[in-house]
């Protein structure tokens, strides 16, 4: 943790290159089939956040902060919370149902649940990544 610009050892970096894409895809998979199989938005969002945290722990903070900085993540989490709020208020004032309504037990079914899952997962993922960034950068300033 002293020379965090370099990151961790070579074994960790090689394994991270192989597995971090798989973790991201697995997280998205768990979010999208939340209404068919066990899973849902909250667990999938945490898995997506864990894949970014793994990238940052292995390669140092420079590798991730260029693409996905602090301001972008805060904006994303606010946007996802706002979209979820809009869906909830619309369900409160409207008369008819919105969302997928064809067939049963396919992936395009179950009304508004897939949209709510996606909004919640983006909120959880970007929020947890921002929290990790804030705590890690704070502890680094002390050393």
């Amino acid at each position: 943790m002293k020379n965090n610009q370099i990151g961790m050892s070579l074994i960790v970096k090689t394994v991270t290159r192989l597995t971090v894409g798989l973790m991201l895809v697995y997280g998205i998979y768990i979010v999208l089939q939340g209404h068919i199989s066990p899973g849902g938005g909250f667990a999938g969002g945490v898995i997506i956040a864990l894949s970014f945290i793994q990238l940052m722990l292995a390669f140092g903070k420079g590798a991730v902060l260029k693409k996905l900085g602090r301001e972008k993540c805060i904006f994303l989490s606010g946007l996802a919370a706002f979209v979820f709020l809009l869906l909830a208020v619309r369900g409160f004032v409207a008369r008819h149902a919105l969302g997928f309504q064809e067939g049963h037990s396919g992936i395009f079914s179950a009304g508004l649940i897939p949209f709510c899952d996606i909004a919640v997962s983006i909120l959880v993922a970007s929020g947890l990544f921002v929290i990790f960034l804030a705590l890690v950068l704070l502890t680094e300033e002390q050393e």
Partner: protein
Amino acid sequence: MELHLILLFMIIAGIVAVEARDLISSVISLSAAGLGLCLAFLILKAPNLAITQLVVEILCVIILIRATINKDLPLVRDGRWLFNTISTVLFVVCFLAFAYFALKELPNFGEPIMRVSGEYIANSLEKTGSSNIVTAIALNFRGYDALGEAAVLFAAIIGVLAITRKSGRVNEK
């Protein structure tokens, strides 16, 4: 039978986490207790919760280790240690005695009274169209609870960003 063993394992891991000397050992046995809880959720037929508990507990342990490494504290025993310990143990024993009498009033283990859940299970497929009943309850029948949870998460994010802000530290020494 397996549930008794897993609960005993969690209790022992909890006692080790409470009494260990350095902080890293405590955090690692807390992680063992969390994994035992994930196994218990699987045995109690709750796969949704097992996935969520596993990943949330991994994240909590990462944040605990990452934030508190190199900051240990030696144990100090000042006066009135014996009185404090004995009074706390007496309080805990009283609490457990009252809990034993209260737990007799619950229905037997394995026979729940599912008055509301019976209707949720019967109407879930035709009213919501989703096969996962737990997600249908948490996001459709009780969707506003999920909105409250998103609000709490958002407040926690803002709280952490406000606590660890740099511009508030004017005079340090």
